[in-house]
């Protein structure tokens, strides 16, 4: 082994010698090592200006933002709100006591309790200037409500995509949530990470400081050494953005460290965005990543982002595509006069066996078209979802068949959301 040890003494601007305490250590086994002084930092400079540095938190840019740089570091899918297979706007959203995906893919809107007013949800083109975004997710209140109830949107994340966070171990990673947000209503808003496998959560209060102004928010959540995520395709982690908090979620003290879930401590201090018909919120650039700082938003190519969304939702036809009457979307055969077994190709394996939503679909067995009444007995293989497409009657047994759009507003959707 060859080892070289250098201790550098340099003259600073005031003429004092000082010890950089920088050790350059090289050997044939471990390569070149640079060790910092007691400050714990090593800076890389160009023309006297710091361009990057190594700190206890890892490699950072000059402003202290992490330079993770790794591909797919964003745990949030479609954080730039570019994909909206279901449509770009839905008006008249009222509380049905449930949850729903309506416009922008992977972002679920939810509410419960008493009526939370009426809302329009949309994929909007209002974005922060100069940040490279084309779309945002917008909620616009059209009928106000001051009744008790909650209002939120969230993204739910599969456990098998979260294993590298090492949650539930002594090496649990911190997570940083960053996003751009704009609203007319200033004040305190709550973001939450919710562990569904272990019934744990952590909340953070952030402030929208200026009305009608895009602001970037960065929130770091400590690692959680308790409760591992299941390594499966189930719903393990929710990244939640509150718009209104019910009394049941806000009557305690905000829980700002990982703990077993106490509902009263989840959304304390949240403003009520439903209290005026002028209220709205836009959000984009949502990123959740390992580490204690936010890296630049990871812009993925459109086709990559679309395919990631299609693991959870596949839309064939209106409004995502423009169908023409008679266009074929799958082929199969007729085992009985009331059913055709058809394979519809999919771009990726879906998270689970999908549910089927459709409108204006028909089966054609060469001689006749029959309207689809239900879809059953399904299974997916790589690149294909096969199912029984049921009709009232009229098909000819043992004929080949194809599945068709019956109108320009026809669609077929495969749903395996979390």
């Amino acid at each position, binding site marked *: 082994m060859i080892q070289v040890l250098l201790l550098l003494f340099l003259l600073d601007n005031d003429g004092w010698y000082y010890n950089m305490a920088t050790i350059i250590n090289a050997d044939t086994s471990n390569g070149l090592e640079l060790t910092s002084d007691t400050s714990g930092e090593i800076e890389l400079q160009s023309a006297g200006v710091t361009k990057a540095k190594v700190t206890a938190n890892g490699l950072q840019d000059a402003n202290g933002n992490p330079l993770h740089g790794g591909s797919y570091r964003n745990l949030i899918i479609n954080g730039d709100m570019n994909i909206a297979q279901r449509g770009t706007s839905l008006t008249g959203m009222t509380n049905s006591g449930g949850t729903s995906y309506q416009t922008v893919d992977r972002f679920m809107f939810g509410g419960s309790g008493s009526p939370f007013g009426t809302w329009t949800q949309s994929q909007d083109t209002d974005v922060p200037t100069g940040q490279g975004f084309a779309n945002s997710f917008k909620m616009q209140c059209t009928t106000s409500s001051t009744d008790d109830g909650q209002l939120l949107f969230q993204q739910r994340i599969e456990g098998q995509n979260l294993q590298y966070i090492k949650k539930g171990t002594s090496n649990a990673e911190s997570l940083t949530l960053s996003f751009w947000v704009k609203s007319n209503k200033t004040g305190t808003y709550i973001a939450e990470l919710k562990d569904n496998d272990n019934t744990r959560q952590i909340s953070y209060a952030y402030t929208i400081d200026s009305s009608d102004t895009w602001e970037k928010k960065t929130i770091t959540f400590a690692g959680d050494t308790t409760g591992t995520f299941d390594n499966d*395709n*189930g*719903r393990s982690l929710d990244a939640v953005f509150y718009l209104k908090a019910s009394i049941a979620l806000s009557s305690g003290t905000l829980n700002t460290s990982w703990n077993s879930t106490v509902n009263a401590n989840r959304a304390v201090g949240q403003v009520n965005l439903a209290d005026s018909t002028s209220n709205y919120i836009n959000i984009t650039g949502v990123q959740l990543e390992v580490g204690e700082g936010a890296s630049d938003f990871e812009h993925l190519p459109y086709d990559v982002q679309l395919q990631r969304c299609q693991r959870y939702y596949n839309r064939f036809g209106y409004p995502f595509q423009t169908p023409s009457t008679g266009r074929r979307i799958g082929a199969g055969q007729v*085992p*009985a006069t*009331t*059913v055709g077994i058809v394979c519809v190709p999919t771009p990726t394996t879906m*998270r*689970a*066996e*999908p*549910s*089927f*939503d*459709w409108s204006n679909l028909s089966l054609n067995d060469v001689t006749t078209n029959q309207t689809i009444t*239900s*879809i*059953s*007995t*399904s299974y997916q293989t790589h690149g294909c979802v096969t199912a*029984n497409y*049921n009709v009232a009657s009229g098909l000819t047994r043992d004929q080949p068949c194809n599945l068709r759009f019956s109108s320009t507003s026809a669609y077929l959707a495969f*749903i*395996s*959301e*979390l």
Partner: protein
Amino acid sequence: MYKLINNIETQEADTVQRLSDNVCIPFDPSNIDYQEYLEWLSEGNTPEEAE
């Protein structure tokens, strides 16, 4: 409300149709629509029989 749909070969239900929006739901424990159906059943409800 839900309605069962039979497999034409086995004549046993393997799908349920949600009548509010006609979405057809496979019997897959990982499917959240199916999970909601199971919760609905656990509340003492009964689906319509298959035709």
